């Protein structure tokens, strides 16, 4: 019985946690929301792509900074004037540079950024393969019986050992 209550409580907690999600921490205010749901959905999409310049690890969609609010309003105004999503994004990027995009574009200056994880994974794989192979060879080496010369050396050494 208690167990069932506990698991129900856990499910409820998880559900609450998931529901709270983003948007809970400030972000889009009721007075900013456009009456046209399609336009508003596009504005949200764009807002999630743009970095808030004040609190740099949030998108303008989730930030409660004043500059982020003004940027959201600007995005909505531009959409209402008939700009495409691309045009709105391009405008903001033309003002702040690629830094303002939360997903950096794939270009010469960002090759390393995008390929870095794959390169590191590859280097790691190579290192593991080399290591394992070397170890196998050492093990073979160790399993080889001693030659007569080695046996003689070993005997001499043991004889010389101080008691």
């Amino acid at each position, binding site marked *: 019985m208690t167990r069932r209550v506990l698991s129900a409580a856990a499910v409820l907690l998880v559900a609450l946690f998931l529901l709270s999600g983003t948007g809970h921490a400030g972000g889009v205010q009721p007075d900013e929301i456009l009456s046209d749901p399609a336009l508003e959905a596009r504005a949200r999409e764009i807002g999630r792509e743009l970095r808030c310049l004040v609190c740099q690890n949030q998108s303008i969609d989730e930030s409660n900074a004043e500059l982020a609010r*003004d940027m959201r309003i600007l995005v909505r105004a531009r959409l209402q004037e008939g700009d495409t999503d691309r045009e709105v994004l391009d405008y903001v990027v033309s003002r702040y540079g690629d830094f303002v995009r939360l997903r950096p574009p794939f270009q010469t200056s960002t090759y390393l950024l995008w390929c870095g994880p794959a390169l590191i994974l590859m280097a790691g794989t190579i290192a593991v393969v080399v290591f394992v192979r070397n170890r196998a060879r050492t093990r073979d080496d160790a399993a080889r019986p001693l030659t007569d010369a*080695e046996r003689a050396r070993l005997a001499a*050494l043991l004889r010389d050992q101080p008691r």
Partner: protein
Amino acid sequence: MTDLPAATAASSRPDGRASPGLRARLPFLIPLVVLAVVAAYFYVGLGRDPHVVPSVLINQPVPELALAPILGRDRGLTTADLKGEVSLLNVFGSWCVACRVEHPLLMAVAGQDLVPIHGVNWREPTPQAGPAWLARLGDPYTLVGADPDSRAAIALGVSGAPETFVIDRAGVIRYKHTGPITADDWERTLWPIIQKLRAE
């Protein structure tokens, strides 16, 4: 082992094989080299202020601005006002502590008539706040425009106040300073740039 002749110990191991040379030890240096590279990156990164975002507007004309005047003035600020002579465009607000820090320097520059300073009065909570701040502390600005909804700030790629742009005769942005201008910034950076642009 202790009774082995020194020469033998250095050149070979008791098993008769050669001791590992520099070549064999090289792989052990790799982690050290990687660490050094990463450490160098982090060291440089530590000294950088992530809020100073390099402006993409350098060498681009001042964006289209048409700012209304602030209370008590009858002229605002437009892009056309920024052509004809080298000038500074300073983004400020009465709410901004760093602007207050910078303010005496702007007053000194204006007092000596070194270069015209134009202001973008950014995001004041009330229309009175900016003018009251200038009335209390002094007004170094030749022209001031109000930017209550950040339209101009965003067009200028501003992320915080104060920010100061150096604008050449043709109305092109040539330099951007983020944060308050210190006496040192003025002498070492901004004033030399202004003089260089005047000589162009």
